[in-house]
């Protein structure tokens, strides 16, 4: 198991390097310089700017400088806001986005797994239809419809909860977390139900039932171990979706997180910010996929054989 983890971590490093390289050159390939404004800028100013952003060096030099700076955790200055560095903006925005994503995923896992298990145990009864219909609503109401609706009803009409901000007034974290998490709760409920139905029809569950175990014990000890694996493999990619979802949720609820900065950077054509954030998000997603793979192997020993053989 330890060897497997070490091997996967070693595999992740070249992936991260490829991603950095690809992103760097894709951004460099975008036509038009970053300082092409409507108003012509004197050549001396352009020269100054190019020197500041290391754009006068040959591309390969720029690339290796960028890599070396990354190793030191330096993402360089922002194009749009020269007084701020990209790492400052990431340091300011990311903790908020991360907190929001964690609340959302915890909400999603709690609601999703419980609803999915109940539905699979009582398949095709009211206890199946009600949570699964709710899951449908969760999937079919996108965050950019659900968010405004929640905001309109709980924030404005009922006036129960704050409509914007993050950590300024008590309760202002509730609506964004629910908005971001609800579709994941729905997906997790569906996936859990599907895989639990599969697991519950297996012989070893029948054996467990025949032994006279309680349903609770069968579910938690026997069935969930296998039934939860598709949920775990869903969590890796879900992280990418959560980050993307934070773009919308942070925009709707005016939360000063990294997602909102990223969307603004895209509109501002703030290339260094886009580059830095993309690399940051990418490394994060690789780490989460890695974790979800490790947990998957830990849960399913049959996969372990393969990983040992391959190693």
């Amino acid at each position, binding site marked *: 198991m330890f060897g497997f983890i070490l091997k996967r971590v070693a595999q992740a490093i070249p992936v991260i390097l490829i991603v950095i390289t690809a992103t760097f050159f894709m951004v460099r390939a975008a036509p038009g310089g970053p300082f092409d404004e409507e108003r012509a800028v004197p050549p001396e100013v352009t020269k100054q700017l190019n020197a500041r952003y290391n754009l006068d060096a040959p591309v390969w030099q720029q690339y290796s400088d960028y890599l070396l700076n990354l190793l030191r955790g330096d993402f360089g200055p922002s194009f749009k806001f020269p007084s701020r560095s990209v790492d400052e903006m990431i340091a300011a925005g990311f903790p908020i986005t991360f907190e929001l994503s964690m609340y959302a995923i915890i909400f999603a896992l709690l609601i999703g797994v419980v609803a999915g298990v109940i539905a699979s145990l009582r398949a095709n009864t009211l206890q199946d239809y009600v949570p699964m219909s709710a899951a449908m609503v969760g999937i079919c109401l996108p965050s950019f419809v659900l968010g405004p609706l929640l905001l*309109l009803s709980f924030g404005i009409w009922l006036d129960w909860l704050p409509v914007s901000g993050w950590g300024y007034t008590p309760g202002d974290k509730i609506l964004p977390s629910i908005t971001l998490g609800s579709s994941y709760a729905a997906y997790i409920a569906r996936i859990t139900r599907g895989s639990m139905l599969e697991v519950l029809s297996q012989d070893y569950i029948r054996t467990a039932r025949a032994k006279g175990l309680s349903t609770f014990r069968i579910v938690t000890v026997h069935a969930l171990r296998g039934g939860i694996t598709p949920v775990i*493999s869903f969590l890796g990619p879900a992280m990418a979706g959560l980050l993307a979802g934070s773009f919308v949720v942070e925009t709707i609820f005016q939360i000063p997180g990294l997602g909102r900065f990223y969307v603004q950077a895209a509109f501002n054509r703030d290339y260094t910010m886009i580059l830095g954030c993309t690399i940051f998000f990418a490394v994060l997603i690789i780490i989460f996929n890695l974790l979800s793979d490790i947990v998957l192997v830990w849960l399913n020993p049959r996969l372990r054989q393969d990983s040992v053989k391959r190693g």
Partner: protein
Amino acid sequence: MNIENIEQGTSLTRDAFRRLYKNKMAMLGLVILIFLIVVALLTPWIAPYTYQGQNLAMGATPPSAQHWLGTDVLGRDQLTRVMYGSRISLMVGFIATAVALLIGVLWGAIAGFVGGRVDTVMMRIVDVLYALPFTIFIILLTVIFGSSMLLLFLAIGAVEWLTMARIVRGQVLTIKRQEFIEAAVSMGFSPWQIIRRHLIPNVLGPVIVYTTLTIPSVILLESFLSFLGLGIQPPQSSWGSLISNGVDTMEEYPWLLLFPGITLSVTLFSLNFLGDGLRDALDPRTSQD
């Protein structure tokens, strides 16, 4: 299953259709979907107003007999705009899913079946692509090539096949390890025969289930991009951009948010119920009737 059917002998496909036909929600989903597709196809001929037609005197009116879904701030008919939006959203949904399905299934099946070094390399590539957040991917492409519909098909398709590939690979790996495959191998069947007889039928269920999750998520992704202003560009509009416009004025004119939102949600509902029905029909093991 009753005695009659056993006596007549029904094929698995016919049996599946029979089960699907009995599923009321799935059939309702199918009917709504067909209706939406027909309306979307006929929109240029049956739309009550023209797409660009403005009537500033009728600026932002609630639903009425003349304008069933009301009008926006420029006095443009909301029903007409939602109908034209459906064309774009549905088209993106179906075409991008087809792209994703094709790439994902082939990729995952090959990786899982061949295994070993090929599998490692193929799944590394999936990891690398996963790690590229799709927004920058699409933004970069739109910056380089200019925003176009074809670009959206390809970009969304290129994003959405990854999960499909992982799922198919996982399924193939699990099935590959089971005894009946070993038995088939030991009996000397060729890999292609094993793929056709054992692998495809067993992978089909999950593929259909995840396709039904993919079509709505593709439609969602396009709407999401359009909502942020990065997808469909004006003067064209999809459900996403209509919703985005609606959110701006939702306190004063809630119907401008509500109707595109409802249309989008109903479409997703129909697709999901149809998909569920298909799953129950195609994979009798997990259905309880």
